[in-house]
């Protein structure tokens, strides 16, 4: 382009010089000659511009002109510019932020992995989960038969304390089968990675992650060959994973990988996991053979599983298990983004949030469109003049599009920075007090998304005003002075649209907020306030007798701490999402075939019900005399009595689980178990020392329990340092872990609800503000247009109250259709959020009424200011405006 410019100049200069010489030859003075030559040639700049036009496509020339013009006009109204860019920026920012999260959680392929698109996850599918774990036997079955995959592996996440150079550290890792690294296509950063030979190797080895290598060993090559202690085993580090590799699961830090065979060495490992075909605890991934689609792999997996199911189902003794098993399927899912607990957890809230922010952006567009329209109105004379000078309506529309394109680009920039901050805030929220390493830094998907969204937004926002400008006719508006009502239907439509969108968002917000309120006001049967809970870890396992000793010592020590009223322990902490069910036999009750013969079970220390504040309605609590040696006793809840004893007293009756028969000695009030949402299951409580042989094997360690302490008053967290101090005194190997209040523990389980209520409320409020601004804008504009009409009315005896009413009626006229449309849209859309609601239906009348009331109150308030201004108009002022 530069070269072309120089050439153009040279060509013209040559011409002018020749003409000048000509005049000089005719006897003119050189200066005069040059002046004439230039004059004759005409405006050199204009001609150069025309020449440039010849060389550049017409639309590009126009576009450049339009953009330059738009920039110039926008600079002249900084208030409008700031307002528009901010509105758009917020809308685009919110969308980019939510999309970044969706991208991070489920779109972004696994980093450092070779051809992630070729990976599939092979999993069982049940009523409860879409990607359930598989058993080792099932893995072998698939591995040996699947023809559509080249290689496959299984893995299991672990979290454990390790000791490196005498320092204890809690770390995450994976136990993996031999093909792990070859399926993922990784090469070591140092040393070697694990391979098939490690599956059966007698030497315990480990591979560490690159991050851990850097953090713990400062990238020192001497780390290879070092050993560390993990679950009483000494492992030797043989290699380092390549940098950037994050494992196959998102949002999790990981420090090391060990062969799956390590499971056999760990406490309680009896090799059963290799044989029992229904012990599902492993995640399976595979690499498709080239040219095989996911669909084909899926079909093969499903067909193979049918054979497996028909083969295994008859071996199940219980009808209930058989029925459940026969409903199971298996599937191959795309594995490029890894397998993902986060995906399952956040898919629903994120997609609903995406919908919400899309509405917010739509609202921002409508708002901006209104602003542009108002600007266009005040520029009507300019537009008329330009039309009169021959500007086509297409060109004028393009001019307006250029303006919104410019605004859109600025909005995209602002939005992008807003999004960076916002998505980080969201990750913090999702982490829920934990550490959630989730990369939300923008990649090409995020850039493309933001670009596309911004472009759509500015086309959408600029179209209406552009089209209406195109329709401006030359004559009337040139003649027009400030007269008449000048109804602007498009402007009103836009305000109604804003109100409708706000209404929809407000309905959503109030549904989510009401869900949260209902959730927290539900009767759980548990008093969670004033209770400290914590877990414990130990450096090694204990023999059973010692375990019981330590467990009892912890509870006794807790009980003796100052301010503690009751202390206890439980296998499962209620309201945390955990559920432990067992098949039970109840004397005097026969289960019908296919009837659910399980009960929720919890193994607890005595005084548990005193800590949770669950009243004992009948019989007695457990006591310190209910120990390993004494006769087994149990406590059941009301539901258990209702369902299995037909409401009659169960005291003295017997219930059997896990080959132990318990005498029922008490009945407690129904208390929620799994979560605030789920109903109360029939529950069987047993003393933690009376779990029977089989139960004991897995749960004989102090680490299996959570410990609880109720304080009389004050913050229970103040006990933390005392407990921390006491633990090594009870046993040198013991440590306290994750102290938190019971309330915090419950809050963990309401993360999604809290997130939706907070964000729904936030966006609802934002929508309300935008809608109010919209109303305010259009009314202020109308008042200024109708100023002499108002003056005349006042002159004819209208009171100030009448005028205020007149303007507020205008608000009502907009509010009514806005609210109605919004309510209709909400009724259609909130269905999608149904599964996230609790205690309210998606068409909850209260939520709709609340939203409508909030919208009406704030828009009337917004309309009041222009109304007041209108009422202050003196008749003389008004008429003078003419």
């Amino acid at each position: 382009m530069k070269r072309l410019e120089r050439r153009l100049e040279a060509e013209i200069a040559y011409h002018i010089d020749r003409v000048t010489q000509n005049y000089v030859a005719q006897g003119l003075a050189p200066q005069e000659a040059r002046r004439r030559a230039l004059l004759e040639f005409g405006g050199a700049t204009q001609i150069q511009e025309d020449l440039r036009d010849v060389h550049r496509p017409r639309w590009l020339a126009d576009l450049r002109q339009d953009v330059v013009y738009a920039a110039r006009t926008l600079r002249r109204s900084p208030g409008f510019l700031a307002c528009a860019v901010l509105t758009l920026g917020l809308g685009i920012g919110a969308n980019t932020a939510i999309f970044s999260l969706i991208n991070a959680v489920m779109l972004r392929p696994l980093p450092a992995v070779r051809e992630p698109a070729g990976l599939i996850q092979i999993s069982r599918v049940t009523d409860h989960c879409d990607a359930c774990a598989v058993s080792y036997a099932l893995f072998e079955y698939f591995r040996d038969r699947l023809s559509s995959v080249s290689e496959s592996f299984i893995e299991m996440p672990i979290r454990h304390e390790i000791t490196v150079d005498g320092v204890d550290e809690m770390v995450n890792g994976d136990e993996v089968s031999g093909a792990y690294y070859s399926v993922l296509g990784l090469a070591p950063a140092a040393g070697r990675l694990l391979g098939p030979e490690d599956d059966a190797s007698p030497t315990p080895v480990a591979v560490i992650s690159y991050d851990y290598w850097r953090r713990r060993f400062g990238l020192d090559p001497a780390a290879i060959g070092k050993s560390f202690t993990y679950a009483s085993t000494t492992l030797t580090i043989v290699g380092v994973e390549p940098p950037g590799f994050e494992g196959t699961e998102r949002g999790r830090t990981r420090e090391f990988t060990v062969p799956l065979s390590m499971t056999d060495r760990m406490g309680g490992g009896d090799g059963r996991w290799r044989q029992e075909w229904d012990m599902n605890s492993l995640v399976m991934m595979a690499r498709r053979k080239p040219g095989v689609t996911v669909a084909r792999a899926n079909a093969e997996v499903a067909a193979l599983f049918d054979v497996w199911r028909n083969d295994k189902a008859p071996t199940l003794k219980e009808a209930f298990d058989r029925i459940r098993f026969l409903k199971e399927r298996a599937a191959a899912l795309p594995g490029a983004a890894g397998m993902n607990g986060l995906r399952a957890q956040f898919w629903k809230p994120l997609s609903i949030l995406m919908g919400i922010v899309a509405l917010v952006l739509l609202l921002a567009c409508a708002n901006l469109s209104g602003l542009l329209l108002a600007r266009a109105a005040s520029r009507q004379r300019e537009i008329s003049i330009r039309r009169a000078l021959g500007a086509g309506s297409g060109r004028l529309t393009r001019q307006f599009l250029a303006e919104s394109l410019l605004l859109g680009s600025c909005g995209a920039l602002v939005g992008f920075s807003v999004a960076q901050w916002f998505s980080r805030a969201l990750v913090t929220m999702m982490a829920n007090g934990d550490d959630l390493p989730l990369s939300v830094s923008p990649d090409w998907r995020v850039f493309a998304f933001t670009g596309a969204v911004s472009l759509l937004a500015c086309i959408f926002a600029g179209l209406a005003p552009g089209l209406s400008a195109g329709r401006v006719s030359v004559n009337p508006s040139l003649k027009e002075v400030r007269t008449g009502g000048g109804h602007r239907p498009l402007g009103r439509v836009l305000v109604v649209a804003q109100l409708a969108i706000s209404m929809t968002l407000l309905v959503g917000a109030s549904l989510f907020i009401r869900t949260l309120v209902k959730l927290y006001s539900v009767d759980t049967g548990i008093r969670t306030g004033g209770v400290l809970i914590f877990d414990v870890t130990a450096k090694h396992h204990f023999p059973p007798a010692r375990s019981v000793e330590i467990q009892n010592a912890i509870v006794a020590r807790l009980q003796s701490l100052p301010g503690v009223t009751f202390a206890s322990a439980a296998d499962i902490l209620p309201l945390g999402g955990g559920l432990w069910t067992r098949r039970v036999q109840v004397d005097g009750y026969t289960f019908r075939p296919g009837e659910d013969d399980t009960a929720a079970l919890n193994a607890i220390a005595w005084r548990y019900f005193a800590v949770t504040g669950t009243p004992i309605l009948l019989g007695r609590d457990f006591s310190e005399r209910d120990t390993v040696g004494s006769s087994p006793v149990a406590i059941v809840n009301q539901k258990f009595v209702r369902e299995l004893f037909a409401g009659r007293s169960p005291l003295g009756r017997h219930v059997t689980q896990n080959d132990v028969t318990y005498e029922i000695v008490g009945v407690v009030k129904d208390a929620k178990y799994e979560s605030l949402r789920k109903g109360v299951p029939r529950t069987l409580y047993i003393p933690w020392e009376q779990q029977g042989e089989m139960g004991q094997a897995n749960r004989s360690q102090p680490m299996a329990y959570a410990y609880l302490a109720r304080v009389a008053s004050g913050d229970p967290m103040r006990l933390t340092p005392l407990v921390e101090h006491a633990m090594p005194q009870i046993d040198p190997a013991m440590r306290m872990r994750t102290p938190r209040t019971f309330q915090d523990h419950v809050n963990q389980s309401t993360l999604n609800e809290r997130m939706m209520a907070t964000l729904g409320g936030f966006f609802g409020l934002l929508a309300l503000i935008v809608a109010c601004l919209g109303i305010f804008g259009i009314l202020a504009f109308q008042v200024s247009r109708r100023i002499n009409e108002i003056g005349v009315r006042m002159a004819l005896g209208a009171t100030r109250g009448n005028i205020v009413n007149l303007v507020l009626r205008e608000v009502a006229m907009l509010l009514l259709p806005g609210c109605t449309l919004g309510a209709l849209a909400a009724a259609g859309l909130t269905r999608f959020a149904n599964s996230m609601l609790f205690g309210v239906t998606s068409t909850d009348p209260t939520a709709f009424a609340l939203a409508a009331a909030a919208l009406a109150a704030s828009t009337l308030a917004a309309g009041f200011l222009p109304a007041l201004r209108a009422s202050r108009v003196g008749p003389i002022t008004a008429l003078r405006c003419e």
Partner: protein
Amino acid sequence: MASEKSDLLQGTLDMLVLKIVALEPAHGYLIAQRIQQISRDVLQVQQGSLYPALHRLEKRGWLKADWRDSETGREAKFYALTRLGRKQLEAESANWDRLAGAVALIMRTVE
């Protein structure tokens, strides 16, 4: 003097340029001079519109241009007719003849 000059009919400038250049390659100044000289000063080329026209014709492929030394020894941009340009010139001059003939016919008969 002004009364003796005529503005160029819209669209005829392109044809004249093609015709001039058909004789021999020429630069802008020369083309303007030739049009003026040959028409005995009747036709005056708007110099400002000559150059955009030249570039347009070049872009359409009717003219080709190169920089070479002019008669004054200084480098100038010379335009020459392409084969496509020659065809265009033939078409346009045939068209012009028809048009001029028709106009002349009317002027002569309708009194």
